[in-house]
């Protein structure tokens, strides 16, 4: 079950559309409405809210890229074969 979910997730991530969606999502997250939500001087565990938002968001985005790359690397051999028979 978990394996199948993982497989499906990786498959979806090979699509160019997924890349574009995440790219646009990133741009939206870095712009006015979302930034506005976190644009406060409050602190959580002593860390400023915006500081946490930006850095955690950044880390998450890097993880997403890693996921994408895992997805493409998994299928790349097949694609490679198809191109160079």
């Amino acid at each position: 079950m978990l394996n199948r979910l993982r497989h499906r997730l990786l498959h979806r991530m090979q699509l160019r559309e997924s890349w574009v969606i995440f790219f646009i999502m990133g741009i939206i997250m870095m712009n006015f409405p979302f930034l506005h939500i976190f644009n406060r001087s409050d602190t959580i565990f002593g860390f400023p809210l915006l500081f946490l938002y930006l850095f955690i968001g950044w880390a998450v985005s890097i993880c997403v890229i890693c996921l994408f790359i895992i997805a493409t690397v998994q299928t790349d051999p097949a694609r490679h074969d198809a191109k160079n028979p």
Partner: protein
Amino acid sequence: MITGFAHAASISLLYLLLIFLIALYAHRRRLSGRSIVDNPYVYSLSIAVYCTSWTFYGSVGKAATTGIDFLLIYLGPSLTAFSWMFLLRRIIRISKENNITSIADFISLRYGKSLWLGALVTLIAIFGIMPYIALQIKAVSTSFYLISGLTGSGINLPVSGNGLFLPTGMLLAVILSVFSIIFGARKLVSSERHEGLIAAVAFESIVKLLSLVTVGIFVTYQLFDGFSDIFARFRAAYPQQFNTLFTLGGDGSKTASIPPFSMLFLSMGAIMLLPRQFHVMVIENSSEHHVTKAMWMFPVYLFLINIFVMPIALGGILTTGSSSGADFFVISLPLATGHTGVAMLAFLGGLSAAAGMVMVESVTISTMLLNHIFMPVIVRFTPQSWFPHLLINLKRLGIILVIFLGYFYYHLIGDSFMLVNMGLISFSAAAQFMPAMLGGLYWRRGNKTGAIAGILSGFLTWFYTLLIPSFSHSGWISSELLSSGPFGIALLRPTALFGLDGMDIWSHSLFWSMLFNISGYLIFSTLLHQDEQERDQVRKFILAYDFERRHQRTEVKRLSKPVTVSQFVSLMTKFIGPIEAQRAIETYHGGRDTGNDSNVSEFDLPNLKRFTEKTLAGSVGAAAAGAIVDSFLSDMGSRMESVYDIFSTVRTSLDQSRESLSVRLKASEIINRTLDLHIIMDDLLNLLLSEFKLDVAIIQLKAEDGTFPVKSYQGSDRRPISDNHWFMESRAYCRMAIDDHLPHFINDTELIANTVEFTNIRSEGIVSCAHIPIFREGEPALGVISLYSKSIVGLFTEEFISLLSSLAGQLAQAVTIVCEMDAKEAERIQKERALLENARVLRDMEIAQQIQMSLLPDAPPEYSGMDIAGRCISAAHVGGDYYDFIHRDDRTIDLMIADVSGHSVGAALIMAEARTLLRAQIGSSHSASAILQNLNRQLYDDLTRAELFITMFYATYNTATGRLSYANAGHNHPMICRSGESSCIELDAEGLIIGVRPSVIFEERSIELHSGDILIFYTDGLTEATNPAGEFFGNERVCMMLSTVGHLSAHNIIDSFYSALTEFCESDTFQDDVSMVVLKIL
């Protein structure tokens, strides 16, 4: 003070020496084939050249003054990494295929190798990068003062008693120039990859990351007690400032803070479009596969280098008490707390950041300068032996120029700007490339005019709204321009263009420049067309990735005069030096065994030309390379002519050349002029021979027996086609063309002579030949056109073959039409003949019918006491029924009725024979049985042969005695209807059908007839007639009918029978012959 200086200077120089050694080592490793640069880690680290002293010093400064929004400069590139999978990889692939040297080269190549565009992009890059280099110089010299403890703006060296004053900035610029030249322009190479430089940059990236992280850890954990501690203490000490720094635009002063979107947009563009970024990411990329690793490693690098920026900034403010001089907290903070070691490490980090950036940037831009500004001028001169020296020195000059422009800007602006704000000016300039770049990659219509218009207007807007205002701080430009606009026109104030004020200058400039840039690009691209060369490039840049390429591109141009390989080598030598040129030509030949000084065969030359262009493109840029090779060839009197000057190109639909059209037009004239296929073929071949200077042309067409005989043969030295004819050797090719529907051509018979038996063809002097199948799409081939040339090797280019194929298609159309017309004509003639035949038969039949009718008695004989009538109606023209009355004497009459099986002409003939024989017997035989017996004997052979037989009823009536004696040969029984009796008497006698056995005895019977008796003889056509329900007319109906019509005359009785039969059958025609003879005794 002097010791501090000496200390700092010596460490700096030692460090630079280390970097140089690393670069040298990388270069050596590359030469020995074991590159240390060719891996994704070095690639990712080299991309980190993005982090300059701006990141190193400026980020902290910005964090301490405007707060956390400095992060957006790094979040943008991190986001852009999402697109690298497609965008960057595509750019890399295109660049590698075309040997692109810089972003200017890339953009100019996409828009039809435009020289103007390349120059424009270079110009923007030079101006745009000026503030950025200034930033580095400022950062390094300031940090140098800090670390060495010097004050003032220069160093006084006691030379020969007189103090020599050296400004540090100038000194730094000189040192950086020297290093850049050493790394990037020691010699002119054919490829723009500098592994040594990249290794140095990667090493510097490690140093700057380590040093910033060390300072960060030092500040966070040594001076303070972790992140939370710094945040908490800062909040307690400066609550107001805390709010400002940790919110966006929190301080309310709008003009000072830049909206997150502008920063994000600028940084996203900068990571790809800054010349040095393009250089390290695209040009220096050694494998496309490195991109996937870099996609996450580069963001991780950015993440790590930024994580301590905020703590350092806050710590700096807490320690020094203010945010002034925050740009250099990284150094000043350790210094202030007495940790000179950490400070020195920080200084080296900053130096690394600055040096790496300046070196890559200056080398990149000097390459652009050389290729796009100097080169177009140089190529106008004839290549000279000292050209390599000129070129390399021009490149060195370019590096110095770039760095000193930066220094000049720094000198002018001085300390009036913060580091980050200087850098953003450069980012804005780089953003001007974005529309042309992205449009060039994904938008087919994007054209040269659009790109030039867009980039130029964007650049001018940037220059006016951003660069000029930046000078105003230095007082170099009067502040009046900013406050009241040029000539007092307030609407044109650079920082509030068209009255748009209240915006920060970066967003303001970004908005206007992008507006003009994008709209200029879109409008001109939409309004104007691309020229041929641009379309060619669009195919390379866009279409090549939309569709899978099936064929290798072949050159569409050919040389009109032979050139040797060594001439190309010497041309290359002039630009890249003899060793590189020799190496290049060796790569070109690769496995092929072609002599170096030989003439290259004509179809190889275009490829060599392309290769030479590509090789030269490595050092002088694609546009210039094309111009160089072309001018070289034209100097040699061997101009590259478009192929269609000689042949014509059939690049369907859009761009058919005039020549191709004229040949096609002539061909269709020939084809439409006549329907005589032989004339068409002869004329077409002669057209090909004369238009293309071929020597022999042959057409074979499919014959009905499946062979392909020669139908037309034109050209010189014609000999009758026989098995010994040289043409027979190419039969196999013809056969292949017919079978696979593909043109087969041999561009040099010499080359394939080893594998194919071509003795006769070669001794005939033929050097190239082609076999084009004649077929219509989806139909089997109708034949093949074979063309032979005795003079031109490599005649059959792709364009030519496709023209020939289309002509063959036209011919196939004509052949099909002619064949169809022939077939139709034949069919028509056959039909006509059949009709004629039919008519003749019909006429014969009509004659036969008439004759047959005339054989029947035309009128019954007249006897007293009896009324007699007979009639026959044939189903066909002629029939087998027969009746007769034979007058013997005044009282005796013979009546007979017969039916020959079938109603063919044969039956009619037999009937005629039977009649003749019958008539002949009347004299000799008297009895009916004897007559039948004789008749059977005489007819037997004929009937057996014709496979026919006869039924016959023969009766002799004596009017005096009233006796009817009769014999029957299997015929239907005649009926007698006696007045007063309801039933009929059927007359029967023993006897076989005539023609079954050679001798048959017929029984003879007799019956006495009385007055009022009606005797009816009939054939089976009457009783066996069927109505639509399938019922027979039947004997009963005949009998009943007979009793009801007894009062009528014999003639009318027959009439009534016929009408009754017609009524019964519900049809005017009968299936069988119907004959009746009625005898009425009065």
